[in-house]
């Protein structure tokens, strides 16, 4: 029997969009909070739009897709950003009555999470100064690209450009070429971990003291916190990070090695002498492993180019999975350079039900709903199909806010919920 869930009773108002804000609110939704998600069909979330839908699916739902509102339920990125139970509420804040409903929700909520640029909410009379008068114990958690003060506060920030101001675009590359990005919107997935932690610290504080607050998260400042050693290296030693391709100053072999098959690779890293001995054993102790120049770590690093040639000659006779298994059996760190296809079949991820399968309202059974990357012994993360835009508007208005039916119908006619 499951006992009380971590966020039982917590009321959350979620007015986030895109890829950072939702992840932060999700941590609460996985674990029992009641999260009301505000959206508007007039300005739909980018993750509800476009992208990646299989043409067969599109053909099957040709009728639904003609309805621009229904079309928004097909955005698959939304399913990844919302694998949790939320209540969908639709509000068109261009209507002053919608702003009033919003204020009622802000009064109801313990926590308000939003991800717009500075000024967006203020212009509607929904800034922190306004809301704290309505609900002094409210936590308002604000995340945006560049923070809510300073000259860039009103600039919209997308992951692609935000990452550029963190240093993350300068840490990967071959020495003879320009640095390359790790991913197209990398910090969008790293800053929510800091933002989520801040959110939970504030909730903890609120539960103990009854006090609310406003949190200002600049996604670039969160991003830079992952790169602190490089900042210190520059500030103390005036050193820029040297791009080294796959070579390492503390390991050799170290890198991606070619395996059997088309574009198949395994990553291997050998650091200690003990790991080197185990590595040599796995490759069958051929004469080159006895070469004195590979006898010490310093020697292996110095001659890593030669070493890599030998390693590649051995690995290319095996599959990446075989190399990983053989190496790991002897305690050598190795991993398949996994494609998305590999990950879907990864037995380790399966052990954690990482590709949780559920029925998507339109896309059929899908396996892209993930639990968080931590597992609690006494609380299961509840993974859920994504909420539809405005799915629970009537319920929230009538049952949660106590708006009379006549009033609700009138507002509906006036476009408050568009």
């Amino acid at each position, binding site marked *: 029997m499951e006992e009380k869930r971590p966020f039982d009773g917590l009321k959350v108002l979620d007015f986030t969009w895109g890829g950072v804000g939702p992840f932060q609110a999700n941590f609460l939704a996985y674990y029992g909070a009641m999260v009301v998600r505000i959206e508007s069909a007039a300005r739909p979330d980018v993750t509800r739009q476009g992208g990646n839908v299989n043409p067969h699916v599109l053909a099957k739902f040709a009728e639904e897709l003609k309805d621009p509102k229904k079309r928004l339920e097909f955005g698959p990125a939304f399913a990844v950003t919302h694998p949790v139970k939320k209540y969908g509420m639709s509000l068109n804040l261009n209507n002053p009555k919608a702003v009033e409903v919003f204020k009622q929700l802000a009064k109801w909520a313990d926590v308000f999470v939003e991800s717009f640029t500075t000024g967006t909410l203020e212009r509607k009379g929904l800034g922190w100064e306004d809301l704290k008068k309505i609900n002094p114990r409210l936590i308002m958690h604000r995340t945006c690209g560049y923070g809510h003060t300073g000259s860039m506060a009103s600039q919209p920030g997308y992951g692609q450009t935000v990452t550029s101001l963190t240093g993350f675009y300068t840490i*990967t590359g071959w020495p003879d070429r320009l640095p390359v990005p790790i991913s197209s919107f990398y910090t969008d997935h790293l800053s929510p971990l800091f933002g989520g932690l801040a959110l939970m610290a504030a909730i903890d504080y609120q539960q103990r003291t009854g006090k609310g*607050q406003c949190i200002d998260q600049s996604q670039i400042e969160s991003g830079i916190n992952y790169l602190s*050693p490089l900042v210190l290296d520059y500030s103390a030693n005036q050193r820029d990070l040297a791009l080294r391709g796959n070579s390492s100053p503390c390991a050799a072999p170290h890198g*991606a090695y070619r395996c059997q098959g088309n574009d198949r690779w395994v990553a291997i890293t050998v650091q200690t002498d003990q790991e080197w001995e185990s590595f040599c054993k796995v490759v069958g102790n051929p004469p080159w492993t006895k070469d004195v120049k590979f006898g010490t770590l310093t020697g292996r690093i110095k001659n890593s180019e030669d070493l890599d040639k030998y390693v590649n000659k051995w690995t290319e006779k095996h599959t990446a999975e075989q190399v990983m298994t053989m190496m790991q059996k002897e*305690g050598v760190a190795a991993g398949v350079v996994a494609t998305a296809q590999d990950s879907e079949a990864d037995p380790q991820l399966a052990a954690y039900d990482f590709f949780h399968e559920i029925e998507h309202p339109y896309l059929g059974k899908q396996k892209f709903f993930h639990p968080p990357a931590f597992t609690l012994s006494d609380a299961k993360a509840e993974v859920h199909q994504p909420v539809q835009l405005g799915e629970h508007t009537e319920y929230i208005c009538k049952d949660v806010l106590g708006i009379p039916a006549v009033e609700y119908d009138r507002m509906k006619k006036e476009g408050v919920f568009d």
Partner: protein
Amino acid sequence: MLSSYRILDLTNEKGFLCGKALGDFGADVIKVEKPGGEPDRNKAPFYHDIADPEKSLYWFAFNANKRSITLDIETADGREILKKLVKTADAVIESFAPGYMDKIGLGYAVLSEINPKIILTSISGFGQKGPYRDYNDRDLAVWALSGYMYITGEPDRPPLAPSYPHAHLIGAMNGAIGTMVALAQRRLTGHGQTVDASSHQGLCFAISIETKLPWALQKINVSREGRERMKIFCKDGVVKIPLLWQCKDGSIAFFFWVGPNFIKHNESLVAWIKASGVDPGLLGTWDWAKEGWNKYTMEEVKQIRATLETFFMKHTKMELHDGAMEYRIQLTPVLAPKDLLEFPLFKERNFWREIEHPELGTKITYPGGFVKPGVGDCGVRFRAPLIGEHNEAIFKDEMKMSTEDMVNLKQRRII
């Protein structure tokens, strides 16, 4: 905000950031090190390149806001001291090989017997269960299995890992959040539990939209594209354009969106290109409200790309930054740590912190807090501890250990 909590931090480099992030909100984090110091104090870079366990900048970065005691928890006496500390702690965080805590008699069953409210957070590359549980989880192995390596780098070369490895930071942060969720549940139930955080899962989550969706929906394996991370669907085929573009003195990030949300944005971009004396070519005649990329042929998209390249190469990255602010364009300079320290916004927001290192006779600049809270502070308040710097404060002042006992334990290399 978290100053009422005490965390015992037994982690190595895989978990340093977990305690540090909690300490940034004021939690009392006690680093429990092996006598002689935590081995991962030997991780580069070092202050003035002097390899010394008291001079690792990596250690400084992720162990600030912690206190340190030395304790050999592999000895019976050491374990007893740790157990006493567990009585007054809220959480123990560790990143040993899975199963190690049980092996040395400090598993969750033992700890919760001493203090039923204790939370045990374990951080590892792959997790505390499953077929990879006992795998050697060095950064590169985790990074490769996460999927990021396959999509990073150039199409004509092997997959590429960052020169600044950081896979385990993701597991550590998930450990910090998991600990907070467990604390939230403890408030309702009165007892602690275990938290199992994995860097592998954290990275797989992070990459999901970019690679796992195209696979799930269209059976496409996203591969390495160098800097050319934007696919353009033209009239006669698909062509790629960069996310990162070269300019006069480095690179900028510019992701060329077209669509209803970007009409004004793109009109403004054209005005900027014209104002800087570059012929906008096809961009000048584009009707942004009505036309998409599919109006153009692959050859025409190449011309558009050339126009942008000419425009960017005319300017430095900071000139482009200033222009982007003025014209409200989604374009940002690609900054290295050096550039970050000079970037105006961080000065405006008072982001950087100068932290005193009396032993080095200097101050070092640290990144500021990862958020600005309304209550209390977030960020580095004091430098990382020296080896066993707080032995006296904890063992003697708090635990009332006699001087004799302390000397005895020291001689036996237990503290």
